[in-house]
């Protein structure tokens, strides 16, 4: 058995994949807590889809590293969505859907020009085994930035989600906190989209936090469980995908979904 597992670490790409998982998943668990808490599941989904448009724009503009155009587009997109959202003219979910569909369609149209879409189809499911050391460094940077933001802003984010007027009356800079949070989500989502995949990235953001929510009564439990569930799904999903020869992203999400249903039953029994 031990030999069976040591086989995992024989390959450099596996070691890199495990390091990447250990960096990404706690981050996703953590961000997910406030995405679920603030009912932003649609928002993060739309950001994932905007990655396609960002890449397409990069190609049209002739940028060699489309990662740059993808990140910039997602940040602008997140910022704009926040601005329009504040006007409260239309329901948020409708608005986000409209934006997401529109940008996805534009992205797909450009990328499929001349029948070339198959080149980009890997983006849809992701491939963590192809991550390079340089890309792991990027992930570490965003990891540090997010943790710092979390320590400074978690109370404020939580307060705003409970009652924005009350938060404002206690001198919380509502707009800035909301905007920075949206930008952080955009950065994390776009920087990890190649490894997790557009179709699955939102599941990985939402599922661990939603599972934690089923069985938590306070913020400490909520954060703790979300991070543990996310890490666990990531590591187990990666190992299972290696031995079963299936794509890693879907395997991680399957594990996370199983956890969700288990915690759902546990949560119901506790009531």
């Amino acid at each position, binding site marked *: 058995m031990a030999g069976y597992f040591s086989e995992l670490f024989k390959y450099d790409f596996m070691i890199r994949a495990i390091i990447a998982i250990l960096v990404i998943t706690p981050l996703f668990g953590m961000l997910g807590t406030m995405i679920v808490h603030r009912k932003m599941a649609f928002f993060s989904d739309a950001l994932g889809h905007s990655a396609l448009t960002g890449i397409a724009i990069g190609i049209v503009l002739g940028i060699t590293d489309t990662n740059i155009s993808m990140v910039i587009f997602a940040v602008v997109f997140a910022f704009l969505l926040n601005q329009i959202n504040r006007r409260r003219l239309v329901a948020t979910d409708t608005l986000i859907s409209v934006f997401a569909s529109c940008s996805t369609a534009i992205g797909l149209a450009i990328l499929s020009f001349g029948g070339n879409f198959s080149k980009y189809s890997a983006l849809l499911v992701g491939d963590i085994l192809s991550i390079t050391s340089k890309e792991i460094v990027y992930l570490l940077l965003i990891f540090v930035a997010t943790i710092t933001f979390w*320590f400074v802003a978690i*109370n*404020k984010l939580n307060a705003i*989600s409970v009652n924005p007027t009350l*938060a404002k*009356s206690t001198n919380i800079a509502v707009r800035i906190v909301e905007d920075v949070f949206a930008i952080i989500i955009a950065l994390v989502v776009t920087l990890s989209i190649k490894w997790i995949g557009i179709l699955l990235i939102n599941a990985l953001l939402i599922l661990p936090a939603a599972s934690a*929510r089923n069985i938590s009564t306070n*913020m400490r439990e*909520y954060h703790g469980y979300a991070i543990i569930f996310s890490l666990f799904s990531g590591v187990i999903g990666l190992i299972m995908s290696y031995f079963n020869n299936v794509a890693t992203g879907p395997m991680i999400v399957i594990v996370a979904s199983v956890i969700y249903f288990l915690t759902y039953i546990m949560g119901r029994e506790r009531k």
Partner: protein
Amino acid sequence: MRKIAKPCGFHCVKIKDIGVAFGDQVILENINLHIHCGQLLAIIGRNGAGKSTLVKAILDDIPHTGTVEFKDVEDGKMQKIKIGYVPQTLNLEENAPMDVYDLICSFRYNYPVFFKNKKIYGEIKEALAEFDAEDLIDKQVGRLSGGELQRVLLSMAVMDNPNLLLLDEPVSGIDKNGMDLFYDKMEYLKENYDMSIVVVSHDLDYVAKYADKVVLIDKAVMAEGTVREVYESEEFKEVFGNSRFEITAKSTTTPIYEVDVAKSHVHKRDIVEKQTPFEASYKGRKEED
């Protein structure tokens, strides 16, 4: 935790020329209010009169004209006002993973809420004790009853020693017992804290019994003064109907709200729940005068 134990009578909050308009539609205009520390001012008015908008304007949550000033009458100095606000509701589902500690820590402290801090825990417990709510500290906020939530929110609003305590319709979803408790607490706050209290209220009985000053608004200030002055004004009768006075003179057993339901904004639910007839408190006041 508190520095000043008694209202000094020298501080006052001046709400000057507040006006709110969305596009061409004027919601509020020329609202001027003046409240001294140790005073309870009640804002009443029909549904849609702009009461909640006024609260939001005072909190600077919406674009408005006019100012809110906090002044020391003795030396005439202006200070930055600190407002303690108790909202109508919180945006939380029943099972939201947030206990009372998390709620108060998020609003009042910078220490990240995902770690527990014993010192902060103690301070929050102390603040809650002021409103007999210390046992609620580990309870989930979404599962608190209306009365419990209100005590928690009051503790949170008061723990920062505000100059102005602003309560937006704090009485909805609370039974008569809870209402009595709430207004008893208001009396206690008036006597023991150096602050002014503004309550946006739906309940004319309690306003009659406890308010020092009443303001009737409908886009603008329609009537203001003591309870008696406002309740006997033409404007008051126009908004709430004057039948209640006639009925109370005839019989005390008649459910007074029945006549007024169509005109007033008192919820139908109140008709069933409320047992304190308006005239009792109103008469009590008259006799005192």
